[in-house]
Protein backbone atom coordinates (compact mmCIF):
# COMPACT_ATOMS: atom_id res chain seq x y z
CA UNK A 1 0.00 0.00 0.00
CA UNK A 2 2.57 2.60 1.05
CA UNK A 3 4.67 2.06 -2.10
CA UNK A 4 1.74 3.21 -4.22
CA UNK A 5 0.95 6.30 -2.19
CA UNK A 6 1.08 9.69 -3.84
CA UNK A 7 3.35 12.09 -1.91
CA UNK A 8 1.20 14.21 0.40
CA UNK A 9 -1.74 11.82 0.31
CA UNK A 10 -2.59 11.28 3.96
CA UNK A 11 -5.83 9.33 3.65
CA UNK A 12 -5.70 5.63 4.53
CA UNK A 13 -8.33 3.03 3.72
CA UNK A 14 -8.83 1.76 7.27
CA UNK A 15 -7.40 1.97 10.75
CA UNK A 16 -5.07 -1.03 10.48
CA UNK A 17 -3.53 0.47 7.34
CA UNK A 18 -3.25 3.88 9.00
CA UNK A 19 -1.33 2.36 11.91
CA UNK A 20 0.88 0.08 9.80
CA UNK A 21 4.54 0.38 10.75
CA UNK A 22 3.82 2.77 13.61
CA UNK A 23 3.33 0.42 16.58
CA UNK A 24 6.19 -1.09 18.57
CA UNK A 25 6.86 -2.26 22.10
CA UNK A 26 8.04 0.42 24.52
CA UNK A 27 6.68 3.38 22.58
CA UNK A 28 4.93 6.47 23.95
CA UNK A 29 1.38 7.13 22.74
CA UNK A 30 -0.72 10.24 23.30
CA UNK A 31 -4.45 9.67 23.14
CA UNK A 32 -7.00 12.50 23.02
CA UNK A 33 -10.19 12.43 25.00
CA UNK A 34 -11.67 13.51 28.32
CA UNK A 35 -12.83 10.27 29.91
CA UNK A 36 -14.66 8.50 27.11
CA UNK A 37 -15.54 11.74 25.31
CA UNK A 38 -13.58 12.41 22.13
CA UNK A 39 -11.64 9.14 21.95
CA UNK A 40 -10.07 7.74 18.77
CA UNK A 41 -11.99 4.54 19.45
CA UNK A 42 -11.00 2.54 16.37
CA UNK A 43 -7.30 3.38 16.87
CA UNK A 44 -7.52 2.24 20.51
CA UNK A 45 -9.18 -1.03 19.44
CA UNK A 46 -6.43 -1.58 16.86
CA UNK A 47 -3.67 -0.93 19.42
CA UNK A 48 -5.33 -3.42 21.76
CA UNK A 49 -5.58 -6.01 18.98
CA UNK A 50 -1.95 -5.45 17.93
CA UNK A 51 -0.69 -6.67 21.31
CA UNK A 52 2.13 -4.08 21.53
CA UNK A 53 3.42 -3.95 25.08
CA UNK A 54 5.35 -1.84 27.57
CA UNK A 55 3.56 1.30 26.40
CA UNK A 56 3.70 4.74 27.98
CA UNK A 57 0.24 6.27 27.65
CA UNK A 58 -0.22 10.03 27.87
CA UNK A 59 -3.92 10.67 28.27
CA UNK A 60 -6.03 12.63 30.75
CA UNK A 61 -7.70 9.49 32.14
CA UNK A 62 -6.39 6.38 30.39
CA UNK A 63 -9.97 5.35 29.74
CA UNK A 64 -12.75 4.82 32.25
CA UNK A 65 -15.13 2.14 33.42
CA UNK A 66 -13.22 -0.60 31.56
CA UNK A 67 -13.64 1.21 28.24
CA UNK A 68 -11.51 3.41 26.01
CA UNK A 69 -7.79 3.07 26.79
CA UNK A 70 -8.70 1.00 29.85
CA UNK A 71 -9.02 -2.03 27.52
CA UNK A 72 -5.19 -2.00 27.22
CA UNK A 73 -4.80 -2.56 30.97
CA UNK A 74 -6.12 -6.13 31.43
CA UNK A 75 -4.02 -7.05 28.36
CA UNK A 76 -0.96 -5.88 30.34
CA UNK A 77 0.08 -3.61 27.46
CA UNK A 78 0.72 -0.51 29.58
CA UNK A 79 3.84 0.13 31.66
CA UNK A 80 3.35 3.78 32.51
CA UNK A 81 0.60 6.38 32.40
CA UNK A 82 0.85 10.16 32.53
CA UNK A 83 -2.58 11.56 33.39
CA UNK A 84 -4.49 13.94 35.69
CA UNK A 85 -7.26 11.70 36.95
CA UNK A 86 -7.69 7.96 37.55
CA UNK A 87 -11.02 8.03 39.41
CA UNK A 88 -13.65 5.82 37.75
CA UNK A 89 -10.93 3.62 36.27
CA UNK A 90 -10.77 0.48 38.47
CA UNK A 91 -8.36 -1.32 36.11
CA UNK A 92 -5.80 1.46 36.39
CA UNK A 93 -6.26 1.80 40.15
CA UNK A 94 -5.71 -1.94 40.63
CA UNK A 95 -2.62 -2.10 38.42
CA UNK A 96 -1.20 1.05 39.98
CA UNK A 97 -1.63 -0.28 43.53
CA UNK A 98 -0.14 -3.67 42.62
CA UNK A 99 2.85 -1.96 40.98
CA UNK A 100 2.13 -3.28 37.48
CA UNK A 101 1.71 0.22 36.06
CA UNK A 102 3.56 3.40 36.99
CA UNK A 103 1.35 6.48 37.17
CA UNK A 104 2.58 10.06 36.95
CA UNK A 105 -0.23 12.32 38.12
CA UNK A 106 -0.13 15.80 36.68
CA UNK A 107 -2.53 18.71 37.34
CA UNK A 108 -4.82 18.95 34.35
CA UNK A 109 -3.82 22.45 33.31
CA UNK A 110 -0.13 21.61 33.66
CA UNK A 111 -0.76 18.42 31.68
CA UNK A 112 -2.40 20.38 28.85
CA UNK A 113 0.31 23.04 28.82
CA UNK A 114 3.12 20.45 28.85
CA UNK A 115 1.63 18.92 25.70
CA UNK A 116 1.16 22.35 24.13
CA UNK A 117 4.79 23.17 24.95
CA UNK A 118 5.92 19.85 23.49
CA UNK A 119 4.26 20.67 20.19
CA UNK A 120 5.38 24.29 20.15
CA UNK A 121 9.11 23.73 20.67
CA UNK A 122 9.09 25.20 24.17
CA UNK A 123 11.54 23.58 26.60
CA UNK A 124 9.36 24.18 29.66
CA UNK A 125 7.42 26.81 31.55
CA UNK A 126 6.84 28.23 35.03
CA UNK A 127 3.35 27.71 36.46
CA UNK A 128 1.83 28.65 39.82
CA UNK A 129 -0.08 25.35 39.88
CA UNK A 130 1.30 22.78 42.32
CA UNK A 131 3.63 25.05 44.32
CA UNK A 132 3.85 23.69 47.88
CA UNK A 133 2.24 20.35 46.94
CA UNK A 134 3.55 16.88 46.13
CA UNK A 135 3.51 17.90 42.47
CA UNK A 136 6.35 20.30 43.19
CA UNK A 137 8.63 17.73 44.80
CA UNK A 138 12.00 17.65 43.03
CA UNK A 139 11.10 20.51 40.71
CA UNK A 140 12.70 23.93 40.45
CA UNK A 141 10.72 26.68 42.23
CA UNK A 142 11.35 30.22 41.08
CA UNK A 143 9.96 33.42 42.50
CA UNK A 144 8.98 35.90 39.80
CA UNK A 145 7.53 39.29 40.77
CA UNK A 146 6.73 38.04 44.26
CA UNK A 147 4.93 34.83 43.30
CA UNK A 148 6.32 31.30 43.32
CA UNK A 149 6.20 29.12 40.22
CA UNK A 150 7.12 25.53 39.39
CA UNK A 151 9.19 24.64 36.37
CA UNK A 152 7.44 22.03 34.24
CA UNK A 153 8.86 20.26 31.22
CA UNK A 154 7.13 19.48 27.93
CA UNK A 155 5.53 16.18 26.94
CA UNK A 156 6.10 14.55 23.57
CA UNK A 157 5.18 11.19 22.08
CA UNK A 158 6.04 8.79 19.28
CA UNK A 159 2.44 8.60 18.18
CA UNK A 160 -0.72 10.65 18.80
CA UNK A 161 -4.14 9.20 18.09
CA UNK A 162 -6.64 11.99 17.65
CA UNK A 163 -10.40 12.08 17.19
CA UNK A 164 -11.81 14.80 14.96
CA UNK A 165 -15.29 15.51 13.64
CA UNK A 166 -14.16 16.56 10.16
CA UNK A 167 -10.85 16.28 8.33
CA UNK A 168 -10.01 17.31 4.82
CA UNK A 169 -7.44 15.41 2.76
CA UNK A 170 -4.65 17.72 3.99
CA UNK A 171 -5.56 17.02 7.63
CA UNK A 172 -7.15 20.38 8.42
CA UNK A 173 -9.38 19.49 11.35
CA UNK A 174 -12.60 20.52 12.97
CA UNK A 175 -13.67 19.19 16.33
CA UNK A 176 -17.12 18.83 17.86
CA UNK A 177 -18.27 20.22 21.21
CA UNK A 178 -16.32 19.04 24.26
CA UNK A 179 -14.86 16.15 22.26
CA UNK A 180 -12.12 18.65 21.36
CA UNK A 181 -10.36 18.66 24.78
CA UNK A 182 -6.74 17.42 24.42
CA UNK A 183 -7.04 16.27 20.79
CA UNK A 184 -5.65 19.34 18.96
CA UNK A 185 -2.84 19.70 21.53
CA UNK A 186 -1.71 16.09 21.22
CA UNK A 187 -1.83 16.31 17.43
CA UNK A 188 1.03 18.83 17.63
CA UNK A 189 3.26 16.94 20.08
CA UNK A 190 3.96 13.56 18.48
CA UNK A 191 6.36 12.35 15.80
CA UNK A 192 3.38 10.90 13.92
CA UNK A 193 -0.24 11.97 14.35
CA UNK A 194 -3.02 9.72 13.12
CA UNK A 195 -6.45 11.34 12.89
CA UNK A 196 -9.61 9.31 13.22
CA UNK A 197 -12.28 11.54 11.67
CA UNK A 198 -16.01 10.98 11.68
CA UNK A 199 -16.03 12.44 8.17
CA UNK A 200 -13.37 13.16 5.57
CA UNK A 201 -14.13 15.88 3.03
CA UNK A 202 -12.25 17.04 -0.08
CA UNK A 203 -9.57 19.64 0.52
CA UNK A 204 -11.08 23.10 0.17
CA UNK A 205 -14.46 22.23 1.65
CA UNK A 206 -13.54 23.61 5.09
CA UNK A 207 -13.27 27.38 4.94
CA UNK A 208 -9.72 28.38 6.00
CA UNK A 209 -11.15 30.54 8.79
CA UNK A 210 -13.05 27.55 10.17
CA UNK A 211 -10.05 25.24 10.59
CA UNK A 212 -9.52 24.38 14.29
CA UNK A 213 -6.17 22.66 13.71
CA UNK A 214 -4.01 23.18 10.58
CA UNK A 215 -3.16 20.01 8.67
CA UNK A 216 0.58 20.54 9.04
CA UNK A 217 0.44 18.51 12.26
CA UNK A 218 -1.35 15.52 10.73
CA UNK A 219 0.47 12.65 9.00
CA UNK A 220 -2.28 10.09 8.46
CA UNK A 221 -6.06 10.26 8.26
CA UNK A 222 -8.67 7.56 8.47
CA UNK A 223 -12.42 7.97 8.20
CA UNK A 224 -14.46 6.15 10.87
CA UNK A 225 -18.13 7.12 10.55
CA UNK A 226 -19.47 5.10 13.49
CA UNK A 227 -18.41 5.56 17.11
CA UNK A 228 -19.72 4.27 20.41
CA UNK A 229 -19.41 7.69 22.14
CA UNK A 230 -20.24 6.26 25.55
CA UNK A 231 -22.01 8.57 28.00
CA UNK A 232 -20.48 8.18 31.47
CA UNK A 233 -23.13 10.08 33.43
CA UNK A 234 -26.44 10.53 31.67
CA UNK A 235 -27.99 13.55 33.37
CA UNK A 236 -31.23 15.19 32.23
CA UNK A 237 -33.72 17.71 33.50
CA UNK A 238 -36.70 15.77 32.15
CA UNK A 239 -39.79 14.45 33.92
CA UNK A 240 -39.68 16.87 36.82
CA UNK A 241 -36.48 15.28 38.11
CA UNK A 242 -34.58 17.66 40.32
CA UNK A 243 -31.14 18.55 39.03
CA UNK A 244 -29.69 17.81 42.43
CA UNK A 245 -30.87 14.21 42.47
CA UNK A 246 -28.75 13.40 39.45
CA UNK A 247 -25.68 15.31 40.58
CA UNK A 248 -25.49 13.37 43.82
CA UNK A 249 -24.81 10.12 42.04
CA UNK A 250 -21.93 11.33 39.93
CA UNK A 251 -18.35 10.96 40.97
CA UNK A 252 -15.07 12.47 40.05
CA UNK A 253 -13.96 15.65 38.38
CA UNK A 254 -12.05 15.04 35.17
Amino acid at each position, binding site marked *: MSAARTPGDKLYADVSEALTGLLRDGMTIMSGGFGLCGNAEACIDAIAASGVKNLTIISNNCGNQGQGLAVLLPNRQVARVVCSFVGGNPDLAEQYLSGKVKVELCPQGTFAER*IRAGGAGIAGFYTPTGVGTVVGEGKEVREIDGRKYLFEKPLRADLAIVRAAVSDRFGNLRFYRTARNFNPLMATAAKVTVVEADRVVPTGVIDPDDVHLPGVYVKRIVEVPEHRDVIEHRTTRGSGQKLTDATRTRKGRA
Partner: protein
Amino acid sequence: MSWTREQMVRRAAAEVGPGQIVNLGIGMPTEVANYIDPAANVTLQSENGLLGMGPYPREDEIDARLINAGKETVTALPGASLFDSAQSFAMIRGGHIDLAILGGLEVACNGDLANWTVPGRLITGMGGAMDLAAGARRLVVLQNHASKDGAPKLVNRLTLPATALACVNRVITDLGIFDVGGDCFVCVARAEGVSRETIIAATGAPVLFTTATSGR
Protein backbone atom coordinates in the same frame (compact mmCIF):
# COMPACT_ATOMS: atom_id res chain seq x y z
CA MET B 1 -29.63 23.63 64.07
CA SER B 2 -26.89 23.41 61.48
CA TRP B 3 -27.59 24.18 57.83
CA THR B 4 -28.82 21.43 55.51
CA ARG B 5 -27.01 20.63 52.30
CA GLU B 6 -29.53 22.73 50.38
CA GLN B 7 -29.09 25.69 52.72
CA MET B 8 -25.33 25.49 52.28
CA VAL B 9 -25.71 25.39 48.51
CA ARG B 10 -28.07 28.39 48.61
CA ARG B 11 -25.54 30.32 50.71
CA ALA B 12 -22.87 29.49 48.15
CA ALA B 13 -25.11 30.73 45.33
CA ALA B 14 -25.28 34.07 47.13
CA GLU B 15 -21.49 34.38 46.65
CA VAL B 16 -21.94 34.58 42.89
CA GLY B 17 -21.98 38.16 41.67
CA PRO B 18 -23.82 39.58 38.62
CA GLY B 19 -21.97 39.09 35.36
CA GLN B 20 -19.30 36.86 36.85
CA ILE B 21 -17.43 34.01 35.15
CA VAL B 22 -17.72 31.05 37.52
CA ASN B 23 -16.35 27.51 37.73
CA LEU B 24 -18.27 25.10 39.95
CA GLY B 25 -16.52 21.99 41.27
CA ILE B 26 -17.85 18.47 41.37
CA GLY B 27 -20.52 17.36 43.82
CA MET B 28 -22.21 19.90 46.08
CA PRO B 29 -20.68 22.90 44.22
CA THR B 30 -22.32 21.72 40.96
CA GLU B 31 -25.71 22.13 42.66
CA VAL B 32 -25.01 25.83 43.21
CA ALA B 33 -26.03 26.40 39.57
CA ASN B 34 -29.63 25.58 40.55
CA TYR B 35 -29.84 28.63 42.80
CA ILE B 36 -28.04 31.31 40.79
CA ASP B 37 -30.44 34.09 39.84
CA PRO B 38 -31.05 33.73 36.06
CA ALA B 39 -31.20 37.53 35.85
CA ALA B 40 -27.65 37.81 37.21
CA ASN B 41 -26.16 37.04 33.79
CA VAL B 42 -23.60 34.60 35.18
CA THR B 43 -21.43 32.53 32.81
CA LEU B 44 -20.36 29.04 33.89
CA GLN B 45 -17.04 27.59 32.76
CA SER B 46 -16.36 23.87 32.62
CA GLU B 47 -12.64 23.09 32.45
CA ASN B 48 -13.00 20.36 29.84
CA GLY B 49 -13.50 23.15 27.33
CA LEU B 50 -16.85 24.94 27.60
CA LEU B 51 -17.68 28.53 28.53
CA GLY B 52 -21.39 29.25 28.72
CA MET B 53 -22.54 25.93 30.13
CA GLY B 54 -26.30 25.47 30.42
CA PRO B 55 -28.45 23.09 32.48
CA TYR B 56 -28.70 19.35 31.96
CA PRO B 57 -30.33 18.51 28.61
CA ARG B 58 -33.86 17.34 28.06
CA GLU B 59 -34.00 13.70 27.04
CA ASP B 60 -34.23 14.67 23.35
CA GLU B 61 -31.27 17.07 23.62
CA ILE B 62 -28.70 14.62 25.03
CA ASP B 63 -25.38 14.79 23.22
CA ALA B 64 -22.66 12.30 24.28
CA ARG B 65 -20.01 14.78 23.16
CA LEU B 66 -21.25 17.73 25.20
CA ILE B 67 -20.31 17.04 28.82
CA ASN B 68 -19.06 18.88 31.89
CA ALA B 69 -15.92 18.17 33.93
CA GLY B 70 -17.86 15.59 35.95
CA LYS B 71 -18.58 13.81 32.64
CA GLU B 72 -22.28 14.55 32.92
CA THR B 73 -24.29 15.45 29.84
CA VAL B 74 -24.95 19.22 29.73
CA THR B 75 -26.05 21.92 27.28
CA ALA B 76 -24.43 25.02 25.83
CA LEU B 77 -26.26 28.35 26.12
CA PRO B 78 -26.45 30.99 23.38
CA GLY B 79 -23.10 32.79 23.42
CA ALA B 80 -21.22 29.70 24.57
CA SER B 81 -17.79 28.82 23.21
CA LEU B 82 -15.83 25.59 22.98
CA PHE B 83 -12.05 25.26 23.12
CA ASP B 84 -9.17 22.91 23.84
CA SER B 85 -7.84 22.12 27.31
CA ALA B 86 -4.79 24.40 27.08
CA GLN B 87 -7.05 27.34 26.27
CA SER B 88 -9.36 26.33 29.11
CA PHE B 89 -6.59 26.31 31.69
CA ALA B 90 -5.06 29.50 30.30
CA MET B 91 -8.42 31.04 31.24
CA ILE B 92 -8.20 29.51 34.70
CA ARG B 93 -4.52 30.14 35.49
CA GLY B 94 -4.52 33.53 33.85
CA GLY B 95 -7.00 34.95 36.35
CA HIS B 96 -9.96 35.15 33.97
CA ILE B 97 -12.28 33.15 36.23
CA ASP B 98 -13.86 35.49 38.78
CA LEU B 99 -14.95 32.81 41.20
CA ALA B 100 -14.43 29.10 41.76
CA ILE B 101 -16.56 27.18 44.24
CA LEU B 102 -14.92 23.87 45.14
CA GLY B 103 -15.46 21.08 47.61
CA GLY B 104 -12.93 20.64 50.41
CA LEU B 105 -11.46 18.07 52.76
CA GLU B 106 -9.55 20.58 54.90
CA VAL B 107 -9.04 24.33 54.90
CA ALA B 108 -6.37 25.96 57.05
CA CYS B 109 -6.81 29.45 58.49
CA ASN B 110 -3.89 30.65 56.33
CA GLY B 111 -5.94 29.78 53.23
CA ASP B 112 -4.27 26.49 52.36
CA LEU B 113 -6.64 23.96 50.79
CA ALA B 114 -6.61 20.16 50.77
CA ASN B 115 -9.26 18.56 48.58
CA TRP B 116 -7.67 15.99 46.29
CA THR B 117 -6.36 13.01 48.23
CA VAL B 118 -6.33 11.22 51.56
CA PRO B 119 -3.25 9.09 52.25
CA GLY B 120 -4.18 5.43 52.47
CA ARG B 121 -7.33 5.86 50.44
CA LEU B 122 -7.60 4.91 46.78
CA ILE B 123 -5.93 7.65 44.78
CA THR B 124 -8.07 9.41 42.16
CA GLY B 125 -5.85 12.24 40.96
CA MET B 126 -6.18 16.00 41.19
CA GLY B 127 -7.79 16.61 37.82
CA GLY B 128 -8.16 20.37 37.45
CA ALA B 129 -8.42 21.17 41.17
CA MET B 130 -4.84 22.42 41.64
CA ASP B 131 -5.07 24.77 38.66
CA LEU B 132 -8.46 26.11 39.73
CA ALA B 133 -7.30 26.66 43.31
CA ALA B 134 -4.15 28.43 42.13
CA GLY B 135 -5.78 30.44 39.37
CA ALA B 136 -9.31 31.56 40.28
CA ARG B 137 -9.50 35.20 41.39
CA ARG B 138 -11.71 34.25 44.34
CA LEU B 139 -12.06 30.79 45.86
CA VAL B 140 -14.98 29.69 48.02
CA VAL B 141 -14.91 26.22 49.55
CA LEU B 142 -18.12 24.36 50.33
CA GLN B 143 -17.65 21.56 52.86
CA ASN B 144 -18.90 20.23 56.18
CA HIS B 145 -17.39 21.82 59.28
CA ALA B 146 -16.23 18.49 60.72
CA SER B 147 -15.74 14.97 59.44
CA LYS B 148 -18.21 12.20 60.28
CA ASP B 149 -16.12 11.20 63.31
CA GLY B 150 -16.07 14.79 64.55
CA ALA B 151 -12.54 15.76 63.48
CA PRO B 152 -12.36 19.43 62.48
CA LYS B 153 -12.01 20.21 58.77
CA LEU B 154 -11.25 23.87 59.46
CA VAL B 155 -7.76 23.64 60.89
CA ASN B 156 -4.73 25.63 61.95
CA ARG B 157 -2.39 23.81 59.54
CA LEU B 158 -3.30 21.17 56.95
CA THR B 159 -2.86 17.54 57.94
CA LEU B 160 -3.76 16.30 54.43
CA PRO B 161 -1.71 16.82 51.23
CA ALA B 162 -2.24 20.35 49.90
CA THR B 163 -4.06 21.22 46.68
CA ALA B 164 -2.74 24.80 46.72
CA LEU B 165 -1.40 27.20 49.35
CA ALA B 166 -2.96 30.48 50.52
CA CYS B 167 -5.75 30.19 47.95
CA VAL B 168 -9.04 30.06 49.88
CA ASN B 169 -11.00 33.24 50.60
CA ARG B 170 -14.09 31.83 52.27
CA VAL B 171 -15.46 28.54 53.60
CA ILE B 172 -19.16 27.76 53.78
CA THR B 173 -19.95 24.93 56.18
CA ASP B 174 -23.02 23.49 57.84
CA LEU B 175 -22.29 25.73 60.86
CA GLY B 176 -21.73 29.05 59.12
CA ILE B 177 -19.57 31.15 56.81
CA PHE B 178 -15.91 31.72 57.61
CA ASP B 179 -13.30 33.95 56.03
CA VAL B 180 -9.67 33.01 56.09
CA GLY B 181 -7.93 35.35 58.52
CA GLY B 182 -4.27 34.30 58.49
CA ASP B 183 -3.91 33.01 62.04
CA CYS B 184 -7.64 32.50 62.62
CA PHE B 185 -10.98 32.07 60.88
CA VAL B 186 -13.39 34.99 60.91
CA CYS B 187 -17.00 33.90 61.32
CA VAL B 188 -19.13 36.18 59.13
CA ALA B 189 -22.40 34.22 59.44
CA ARG B 190 -23.67 31.59 61.85
CA ALA B 191 -26.28 28.97 60.98
CA GLU B 192 -29.49 29.71 62.86
CA GLY B 193 -29.36 28.26 66.36
CA VAL B 194 -25.67 27.34 66.25
CA SER B 195 -23.81 28.85 69.20
CA ARG B 196 -20.37 30.39 69.21
CA GLU B 197 -19.30 27.65 71.61
CA THR B 198 -20.40 24.95 69.17
CA ILE B 199 -18.36 26.59 66.41
CA ILE B 200 -15.28 27.07 68.59
CA ALA B 201 -15.44 23.43 69.72
CA ALA B 202 -15.80 22.16 66.16
CA THR B 203 -12.97 24.27 64.71
CA GLY B 204 -9.29 23.30 64.76
CA ALA B 205 -8.10 26.92 64.73
CA PRO B 206 -8.97 30.15 66.57
CA VAL B 207 -12.25 31.78 65.45
CA LEU B 208 -13.02 35.48 65.58
CA PHE B 209 -16.62 36.62 65.54
CA THR B 210 -17.77 39.83 63.90
CA THR B 211 -20.32 42.18 65.44
CA ALA B 212 -22.97 40.38 63.40
CA THR B 213 -22.01 36.91 64.60
CA SER B 214 -20.87 37.52 68.16
CA GLY B 215 -24.32 37.62 69.76
CA ARG B 216 -26.25 34.77 71.34
